[in-house]
């Protein structure tokens, strides 16, 4: 595969064609924060935390580095006043869900994010989709998925599959950047109602 030369934070970086900026940066020891990225999974581009500034042919634009592929002579800046401001707000929005997540707290310190800027939501889930995508792409089980959309979107285990597959796996739990408890809770909730009681009247 042919080599691509680019510059990240003033450092010359040699990358392979087809690599994303994130991969190129990490290979050169430059860190870019991510929440929804996982080496084994297809790029998702959901958390937007890995947003960086690129300069190409005199144009500056902001792109998410987990998706944008490297180009010859690309100039990348992983930090700038603007980038930091965007990351700070993204973190503040997510801290409204998971204020106690150590991962978020570390990032919040780095970017000066206020964990209490927004009113708290009743869900720890930050919709990074790691559990959902890991189950689909790596385990190929689709035991957990997203339901609904937008602000009502939540993860949900499919009881029929989960009852069979999840007991011995639970590999998605440690992937959760907020609280593995969230996945555990949703899984448990889906399993208590499965299999459905043969005599629903008995519950009364």
């Amino acid at each position, binding site marked *: 595969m042919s080599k691509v030369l680019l510059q990240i934070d003033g450092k010359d970086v040699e990358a392979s064609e087809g690599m994303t900026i994130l991969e190129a940066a990490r290979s050169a020891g430059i860190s870019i924060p991510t929440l929804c990225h996982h080496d084994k999974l297809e*790029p*998702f*581009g*959901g*958390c*937007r*935390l890995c*947003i960086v500034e690129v300069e190409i042919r005199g144009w500056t634009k*902001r*792109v*998410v580095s987990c*998706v*944008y*592929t490297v180009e010859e002579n690309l100039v990348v800046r992983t930090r700038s006043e*603007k980038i930091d401001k*965007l990351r700070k*707000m*993204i973190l503040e*929005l*997510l801290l*409204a*869900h998971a204020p106690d997540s150590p991962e978020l707290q570390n990032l919040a310190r780095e970017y000066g994010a206020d964990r209490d800027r*927004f*009113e708290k939501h009743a869900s720890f889930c*930050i*919709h990074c*989709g790691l559990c959902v995508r890991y189950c689909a792409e790596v385990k190929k089980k689709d035991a957990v998925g*997203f339901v*609904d*959309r*937008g*602000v*009502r*979107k939540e993860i949900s285990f499919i009881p029929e599959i989960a009852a069979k597959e999840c007991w011995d796996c639970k590999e998605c739990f440690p992937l959760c950047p907020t609280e593995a408890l969230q996945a555990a809770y949703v899984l448990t909730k889906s399993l208590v109602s499965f299999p459905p009681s043969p005599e629903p009247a008995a519950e009364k």
Partner: protein
Amino acid sequence: MPRIGSPADLEKFRKDLLSKREPDKPCITLCSGSACHATGSRKVAARIEEEINKQGLQDKVDIRKTGCHGFCERGPIIVIHPEKIAYFQIAPEDVPEIVSETIVQKKVIERLLYTDPDTNKKIIHESDIPFYKHQERLVFGFNGSIDPKSIDDYLAIGGYSALAKALSGMSPEQVLEEVKKSNLRGRGGGGFPAGRKWEGSRDAPDEIKYVIVNADEGDPGAYMDRSLLEGNPHSILEGLTIGAYAIGSHEGYIYVRQEYPLAVENIILAIKMAEEYGFLGKNILGSGFDFTVKVHRGAGAFVCGESTALMTALEGRVGEPRPKYIRSNIKGLWGRPSVLNNVETWANVPLIVNRGADWFTQYGTEGSKGTKIFSLVGKITNTGLVEVPMGMSLKDIIYKIGGGIPGGKRFKAVQTGGPSGGCIPDELLDLEVGFDELTKAGSMMGSGGMIVMDEDTCMVDVARYFIDFLTDESCGKCVPCREGLGQMLTILTNITAGKGKEGDIELLEELAEVAKEASLCALGTSAPNPFLSTVRYFRQEYEAHIREKKCPALSCKELISYYIDPNKCQACMICKRKCPVDAVDGAKKTIHLIEQEKCTKCGTCFEVCPSKFGAVKKISGEPVPSPIPEEERIITRKSKAK
């Protein structure tokens, strides 16, 4: 019907078709678009057929159920040919008279004609009515003269001649050049030059390429694509086929909303007819070019109008956008080069091929060529679909065509571009419509929604409404849109409910910036527009809500109170009787007053108080005056006092 095998056969077929048609034979055309369906055109159609049979005129009169004529405010619409007499707001009861008077005796029925509100004169022909007179109906105009279910009708007006011209006389490169030269820009929202999009796909090395019609029109109040698909489906098919030829695609998709049943029905029928006639399928018109089209019905997600989400949905997955640093025309549907254009864009293509780019570019402005169909709705006298040359001023569209604001109210703003467009205020009404002009004003062309607002509209509430819509329609994949819009909605809702606080505007601005800069797709990046444009032009309204707890438009329920002016109340009991919650205290000869703690602010008392009294007042940002002493509430009539 045998397949038409060559352009010569097509012309011969057309000639035969026209020779069999009698241009002088009376023909009743009836608008049967969705809007007229809603106002009862089906019943009118049934009555026309019944009446024609009753009067034994089956052989003497043709009936044609056409697509939308555009003047939806006045539907159902009938036009009687060959005289082109236009009747509006037809009820089934009018039909016997129309048949016996106008069809049989050739007499015009005055009361069914359009009355010019300025001159009070009756107008016979559609083309003389101000609503139509100032339009340039290049794309939309055929709707009124063809039955969308009849391919012969489309052929009679010259249909598929552009396809024949392209396939027989032009190379794909020549077609592409013509479209590039026309500078046709995408009518769906982005305004990206169609020719450049096509060229990218054409030059992409992949053998398999796709062309797609985006008919997932989802903007509230917008229905131009719907009306085109319902009223002239073949024009879209013809444009799509020409585009496929130009880029070298053999497979096309029409992504249409399931909520548009008539459009789905008509486009499916049109595809079937075009296949039978040989305008689709193998070896089209003997050219050796093959092309097939499939219809995909969308399941009701606004975000699927976004190109990458639409393609993801077409692939059978959840309709969520994907990052498009590599454009869809290079890597789109199933990873193949895919040209996606909106309904109206495709419908422009046959015109450009037939009449040439030079003809097309004589319409419009430097940056925006041709015409644009707008859906003119809201507080406007003439609601409907209007097609105007790019560059017409907003003022002309709203006043000359739209007939201005009803009820003597003052114009306040026009919202263009759909939910993620922006509001343009009074002082910018001379703005010429065009892609770049509208963007510069903080709004956008979008797909052509145009919602007119009068002085009673609260701009903060407008922003809240559209952000609410977009929050609901956000797919939820990326943080700035899902979480950011949600927070914006909370803050806007608080402001309209009187719970706004200092710093809210600044926080909204910050959230807007993040959504604009960091969202994954165009839904998120454009979603803050309703807020940004209203805060740009109407910041004082935001401040009034936050600081004075006052809604200047007297619209936000939580910030207004109703009260009865004791000096004006005549104790007529009307408001007392109509109040649904019994909040009006009073009796005959006892001045009424509203018990504020009971009042639900429904506004009934305000509406029913006779205008000659005008005693019920709506106030905001000020305390309700204390009730007058009980003894002063007794009215002693002057006449009786004597």
